């Protein structure tokens, strides 16, 4: 059993790693990556069965990041887990680096190339269906954005997951209520999300998506009903952990200046110090 303090410290450390990556590369999805850091930390340190030394182990749990752009936290987690050397993070977005601005399955641990929104859940349905066909116990986790819910293909996939009774599939919505243009409710309202997903045959669980301990407990309890896929509606704060970026749509893919970088790293270092 992983202890709570370890998880919280890990999330803070991942935030520091991703801010450094984005600052050094001069590019990246700062707000989006800070938003999903706790979800990735919960999955990779508290929930999923993966083996960094054997990334293609056939019984591994699968993670598909449908909101591909929030990749910096993902790279930081995979490096920290040992899927590839941590010093490779400094190549992020550099010429010909495999650590590009979206998940890339040339990198050990990454299942599929994503980046075009609305693809990940369909892929995950295929993976979960294969597990059912082969009587395998692995689970499939897919992270989507709340802005991504405007893609029609999400709902095609949602329908098919309940049709095939995929209770080994866990969809997660990083619901930070902001997208690149502004508030998701202004751009294209998708509420009530919980009722929409329930009406598509999913069990819906709402959690604080920046509470890594609550996330671990929520994932571990799935499935919530036999024969039904689970949708974890994770209420998050875009830019979480860095005060100047929190809840500001403009930080979707803004890169910190030197001053902002120092402020962000100072805040995150303090958060780590408190978690002793």
């Amino acid at each position, binding site marked *: 059993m992983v202890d709570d303090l370890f998880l919280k410290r890990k999330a803070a450390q991942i935030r520091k790693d991703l801010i450094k990556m984005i600052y050094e590369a001069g590019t990246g999805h700062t707000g989006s990556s800070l938003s999903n850091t706790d979800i990735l930390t919960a999955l990779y340190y508290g929930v999923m069965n993966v083996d960094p030394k054997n990334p293609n182990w056939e019984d591994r749990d699968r993670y598909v990041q449908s909101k591909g752009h929030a990749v910096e936290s993902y790279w930081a987690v995979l490096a920290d887990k040992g899927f590839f050397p941590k010093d490779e993070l400094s190549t992020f977005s550099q010429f010909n680096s495999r650590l590009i601005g979206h998940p890339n399955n040339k990198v050990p641990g990454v299942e*599929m190339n994503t980046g075009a929104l609305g*693809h990940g859940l369909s892929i995950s349905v295929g993976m979960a269906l294969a597990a059912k066909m082969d009587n395998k116990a692995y689970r499939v986790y897919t992270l989507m954005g709340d802005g991504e819910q405007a893609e029609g293909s999400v709902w095609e996939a949602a329908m098919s997951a309940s049709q095939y009774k995929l209770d080994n599939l866990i969809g997660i919505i990083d619901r930070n209520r902001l997208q690149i243009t502004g508030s998701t409710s202004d751009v294209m309202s998708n509420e009530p999300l919980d009722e929409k997903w329930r009406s598509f045959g999913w069990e819906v669980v709402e959690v604080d998506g920046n509470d890594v301990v609550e996330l671990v407990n929520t994932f571990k309890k799935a499935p919530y009903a036999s024969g039904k896929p689970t949708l974890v509606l994770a209420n998050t704060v875009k830019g979480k952990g860095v005060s100047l970026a929190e809840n500001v749509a403009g930080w979707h893919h803004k890169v910190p200046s030197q001053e902002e970088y120092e402020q962000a790293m100072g805040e995150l270092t303090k958060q780590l110090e408190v978690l002793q």
Partner: protein
Amino acid sequence: MNNVALKANSGNKIANRKVVSDTLLGLANVNKDILVLTSDSRGSASMVPFAEELPDQLVEVGIAEQNLVGIAAGLAASGKKPFVASPACFLSMRSIEQIKVDVAYSRTNVKLIGISGGVSYGALGMSHHSVQDLAVTRAIPGLHVMMPADRHETKKMIEALIDYDTPVYLRIGRNPVEDSYLNDDYHFEIGKAVTMKEGNDITIIATGETVRVALDTAEALQNDGVSCRVLNMHTIKPLDEAAIIKAAKETGRIITMEEHSIYGGLGAAVSEVVSQNQPVPMKIIGIPDEPAITGKTPEVFNHYGISAANVSRIAKQMIGN
């Protein structure tokens, strides 16, 4: 050149879609990882017997082509061998981004069978015609593109695809087509054009159902003393460049024929090779840049000059006699 049916006299009543289904059913009985995915298309794909005999190996996705291809990619990434059977018009357009990203870019071993392709939906109009699919699919890196000439080649192709570790888009038509081969007792190789008939004066390079028209054209030309080579370019990508360059060198003139837009398909692919390696006069025969006229396939072909009468006339013009 063995096995080539030089004259169309088979009276074949079996559509290529039926051959795809029968061949896959035989193979899937042995290999349980072979799956067929349909988008409410099991009837159009002649997959009803497959669904009845192997219900656990047929995945129905409903009328949702994006999800269809995404699910196939996820299944392939989990060790399955998915064959997607969906109308070419929808498969090559509605789900093209899934084909590009989830299949080709992610390198998942998905076989995409575009059924009822070209103008074979006839009277249903442009929404159901697919004469842009070769252009779109061949521009995607990592995706191979094929089109069989008749039922015999369809069988050979499906058998070859089972252990072919590359994603493929394969287009077939809806209706029975006259045979171009006498039987399926011959060596088939992906990416290698078949010389259906030798010739020295001109080469016709055809693909899919136009191979039969090309053979008939060559026959007509022979009666007029013109020696016409016929290449069956069943694989559009990877293209058999050597066969094209050889034909350009040895016959000096090339005509291409395809059930596809004159933009971006076989004619374009061949001219890319010819113009950069062995420039010779060329003619591209296909569907012009307009919503294709509606009617039965032979009527549409005749309307656009995809016929032995028209192409032999053009060939003679090119030769200058």
